[in-house]
């Protein structure tokens, strides 16, 4: 009963970003607080159709908060997030549920459901949002497992997978509904360089094969330079620069360069002062 109604809905008020070349994500003057603390201030951001945008920043720069706000998990204090033309925080729950079927998320730790096998995990979105029969769902889930190079591990439980495999399974689950936008939270964190590089490759392949826009949050420079079309550098809740890899590398902002060259912004202590602090000999 609900199915035809939904289709009609989609056609009558198809938002601009849905079809055209407009931005798939549009963030306008976003401000977010955590309690009293201001985390993001006046963030403006656009993600174009089919591009890989990397959001980079050190710990505490607000990149996770930005991601959570883009996903609709956190409500901003002010400002808007438009995804595929719809205001994520103003639409009804039902509309948001439909919108979310066009978004896939690969979480940092995978966030696979530990009580379900790998295949069941990947089938879950299909099971909840489509009327397909179980065989079709299985085939679709297996196809996605092939895409992420994880065939043959369908029946394992998440606890039996290695870190890299969990990431791959998370990617498979994120793209099982063929989303328009894929979000990845720290895709290469906690992986060895070889596996991390394979994950980068996977992200590029997914974009190539499925034409989706991809937003990656990471602090790994190497990975960011490799996969990004554009990089957005976030620092203390503000965007320092958004631009292509070259533009960011050549940017003369001191803080951007500090981040790129892994220079600490903490005061550098001379050995004597350091020793004094260690021994707690104040004044």
């Amino acid at each position, binding site marked *: *009963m*609900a*199915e035809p109604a*939904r289709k009609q809905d989609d056609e009558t008020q198809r938002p601009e970003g849905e079809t055209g070349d407009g931005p798939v994500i549009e963030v306008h003057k976003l401000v977010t607080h955590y309690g009293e603390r201001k985390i993001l201030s006046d963030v403006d951001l656009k993600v174009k159709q089919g591009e890989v945008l990397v959001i980079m920043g050190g710990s505490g720069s607000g990149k996770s908060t930005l991601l*959570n706000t883009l*996903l*609709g*998990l956190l409500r901003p204090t002010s400002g808007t997030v438009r995804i595929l033309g719809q205001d994520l925080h103003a639409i009804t729950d*039902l509309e*948001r*549920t*439909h*919108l*979310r*079927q066009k*978004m896939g*998320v690969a*979480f*940092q*730790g995978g*966030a*696979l*459901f*530990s009580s379900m096998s790998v295949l069941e995990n990947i089938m*879950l*979105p299909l099971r*909840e*949002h489509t*009327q397909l029969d179980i065989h079709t769902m299985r085939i679709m889930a297996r196809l996605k497992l092939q895409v992420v190079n994880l065939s043959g591990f369908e029946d394992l439980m998440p606890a039996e997978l290695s870190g890299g495999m969990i990431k791959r399974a998370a990617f498979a689950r994120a793209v099982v509904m063929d989303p328009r936008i894929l*979000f990845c939270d720290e895709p290469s964190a906690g992986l060895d360089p070889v596996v991390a590089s394979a994950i980068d490759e996977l992200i590029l392949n997914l974009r190539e094969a499925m034409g989706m826009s991809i937003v990656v949050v990471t602090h790994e420079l190497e990975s960011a330079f490799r996969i990004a079309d554009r990089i957005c550098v976030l620092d203390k809740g503000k965007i320092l620069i958004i631009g292509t890899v070259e533009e960011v590398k050549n940017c003369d902002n001191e803080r951007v360069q500090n981040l790129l060259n892994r220079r600490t912004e903490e005061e550098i202590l001379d050995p004597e002062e350091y020793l004094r602090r260690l021994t707690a000999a104040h004044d």
Partner: protein
Amino acid sequence: MAEAEGERQTLGGVDAFVARAKAFCERVGNATVSAISEVGLGAWLLFQVLFWIVMGRGRAQPVRIPATFERAMEVGIRALPIVTMMSVTVGMMLAIQGIYSLRIFGAEDQVTIGVAFSVAREFGPLITGILVAGRTGSSLAARIGTMRISQEIDALQVMGIDPIRFIVAPALIAMTIMVPLLTFWADVIMLAGAGWYVSMELGMSMGAYVDQIRELLRPTDVMHGIWKSLLFGVEITLVGVINGANVQGGAEGVGRMTTRSVVLSISAIIVTDMIFAFITTR
């Protein structure tokens, strides 16, 4: 540091008392506010679950029957061994104490009256409730807490799957069905346990004991306990879910909230028990 020290010293006895009293009032106030907001949260959760049960199908997002069935197995069937064991024990304990106290009046053969009413109205639901709170309430809190920490709840939300429909609703439905059923089972087993001891101790035949029970117990007495246990089931679920959802700070947080959920749900059960008994016996 030094300044603060100085300030503290300048505070006289009266000032210190006022400061302490103020801090105490603040603590009590905060605790009250958070307690009330938790009750509100419970009511909201209950409303949400009812919403998904009624509206889910229309939105093509029904509460899943297999998931509910799986929960019911976990809550009910897998609890049968422990509930049975405890019920036999409590039944015998009641018979022992009953015979001991009635012996004062030389009225040991009246023990059935005490056993029948106390089991059906009190001990059946209470013991079942406490066991379920320890078994299922804690596991619910731990499960939801762990899912929160590992971002599984976030994952559900971004997939467009409402966690209340997906996790809470099946648990709540399973509890409202299984806790009353378990209670009825516990009633039967407790009465049987008591009967076994009574027949041994007083030489009363099992048939006569059963006849006495059937004569004494009216359906309203049994239903008194069953209705109460339904309330317990709802309370245990809501307390477990709220505590699980409030987990913060990793493994230690999960442990703390799991403990809190067990303590709170058992307290809630006992208080509800008293209030329910008070209201229905007037």
